[in-house]
């Protein structure tokens, strides 16, 4: 569900009322890049009434691809004091978990590699620079080195799970050839995640766009689970990895929630539940979020129907088999 960032305790109450299990959260440190060096625009929507995006797009401070290719993220933004960083992350986790005691509050990092490049350069300049793959790899490596510092700090905290976010592909798939991902990006994910996994943290990978073709690579890199958008081919992935990996997603599409009929919403829930049944666990999430323009009655229908059907045994439908919350599929 998007929004509610400043809603304080009401947001926590909402999470409880909707029986949410996982809070999607990332934290890239106490000081934003914009205060440390040059940044452009990640392109995140800032919703106002009626769902319009009214953020102020920033101008890219890099005028030529050459400037991007000479960029080093560690030099530009610097590495924060490690001890202070660990303390900051630990506090943010503990505060977040205390505010939402009935949800899993993970650690997380947003600008892992590609998203870091988007934040620094914006897509236009990033893509122009990426035409020189060899030198662009060095730029991405510098973002990786910066991220590694933060991942090491997160590994020292008491989090149980970690969301690694990186918008590495587009809706149409990879923006450069798949070999580049396999040679440059995924081995670096593996090194980043090894730090967390060695410390006993579970790593959930999250990216916008369609990365169906890379799921095996993400597993190779060490992800314990995936957070999906509706562009992903959910069924084959759940069939292959649903028993061994955490799946956060569903066939329910926010466009259906916004404009679809109840039958259509119900069909998407049913098809996901069918997929989820053989899995030891499954986290139901609406791809692309439940956005601000989803009619309330559709959102309520979605949740009510889901809650009535997420139990494994139909005979126990509605029963609270495990404490107050029942046993979800």
């Amino acid at each position, binding site marked *: 569900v998007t929004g509610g960032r400043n809603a304080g305790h009401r947001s926590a109450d909402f999470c409880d009322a909707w029986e949410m299990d996982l809070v999607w959260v990332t934290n890239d440190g106490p000081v934003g890049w914009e205060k440390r060096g040059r940044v452009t625009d990640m*392109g995140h929507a800032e919703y106002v009434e009626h769902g319009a995006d009214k953020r102020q797009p920033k101008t890219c401070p890099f005028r030529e691809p050459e400037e991007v290719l000479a960029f080093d993220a560690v030099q530009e933004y610097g590495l924060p004091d490690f001890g202070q960083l660990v303390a900051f992350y630990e506090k943010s986790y503990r505060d977040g978990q205390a505010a939402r005691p009935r949800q899993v509050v993970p650690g997380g990092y947003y600008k892992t590699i590609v998203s870091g490049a988007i934040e620094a350069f914006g897509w236009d300049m990033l893509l122009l620079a990426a035409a020189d793959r060899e030198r662009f790899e060095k730029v991405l490596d510098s973002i990786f080195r910066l991220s590694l510092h933060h991942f090491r700090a997160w590994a020292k905290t008491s989090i149980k799970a970690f969301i690694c976010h990186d918008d590495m592909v587009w809706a149409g798939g990879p923006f450069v050839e798949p070999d580049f991902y396999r040679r440059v990006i995924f081995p670096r994910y593996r090194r980043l995640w090894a730090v967390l996994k060695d410390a006993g943290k579970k790593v959930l990978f999250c990216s916008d766009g369609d990365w169906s073709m890379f799921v095996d690579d993400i597993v190779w890199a060490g992800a314990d689970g995936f957070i999906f958008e509706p562009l992903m081919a959910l069924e084959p992935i759940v069939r292959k990895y649903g028993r061994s990996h955490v799946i956060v997603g569903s066939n329910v599409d926010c466009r259906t929630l916004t404009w679809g009929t109840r039958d259509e919403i119900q069909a998407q829930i049913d098809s996901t539940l069918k997929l989820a049944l053989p899995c030891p666990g499954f986290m139901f999430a609406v791809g692309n979020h439940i956005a601000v323009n989803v009619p309330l009655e559709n959102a309520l229908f979605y949740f009510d129907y889901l809650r009535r059907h997420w139990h494994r045994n139909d005979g126990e439908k509605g029963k609270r088999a495990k404490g107050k919350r029942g046993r979800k599929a």
Partner: protein
Amino acid sequence: MGRAGSLRFNDAPPGTRLAAARAGSDWRRRRSVGAKELLEQIKEAVINGKRKDSAALCQQGLAQNAPAADMLNLGLLEGMQEVGRRFRAGEFYIPEVLVAARAMNAGLEVLKPELAKNPPKKLGRVVLGTVMGDLHDIGKNLVGIMLTGSGFDVVDLGIDVSPAKFSEAAVSNKACAVAMSALLTTTMVNMKDVIGELRKSGFKGKVIIGGAPVTQEFADKVGATRLAWTRCTCASRRDWRTPNTATTPLSSVT
């Protein structure tokens, strides 16, 4: 010059072939080998994204009295057509398209003063923009690049464009098509308002919609002529002639 030795017109935009052939025939007759080489070099400079080379070669062509229309249609635009083909074939990716477009534009800047004296015929004019409330324009920009590279005149209205502005621009520019995109599910609904406004104004051209959340079903529902555009399909002339062909939504930043 015999047929076997003539320049290839196969991939040049159809509306521009005749003008290019007429304007450049003397030059090509006089300097057949050099002309062909120069046009090939311009084309290669675009394909390889060599901005400085593209500008220098166009400058060289002008110094040799080569028709600007030839260099545009048979050099720069042919280069972009090849880039589009390789992109659709998965041989090129988005960075290659962008650097090629920069190379094309660098050559175009050199040719502009000459082209202004005798403007080449375009395939048509397309009005382009993101719908009101939506600021995501990388996909829209790519579409503009490929439309330009295919011989269309593009009027880019930018981002966050109101239905009235789309409509006014379509009418005042005598556009053959309006192309609009949205990345957000919250803003894609505004396409319907744009189409309503266009129809109210009497606009009879094609309406193309695109963006990550847009589907063929949605296109049909809002009354768009067609859903465009992935892998530059909106700029593929074959697609352009089959207006209701469903294609995958445009690759977009999400």
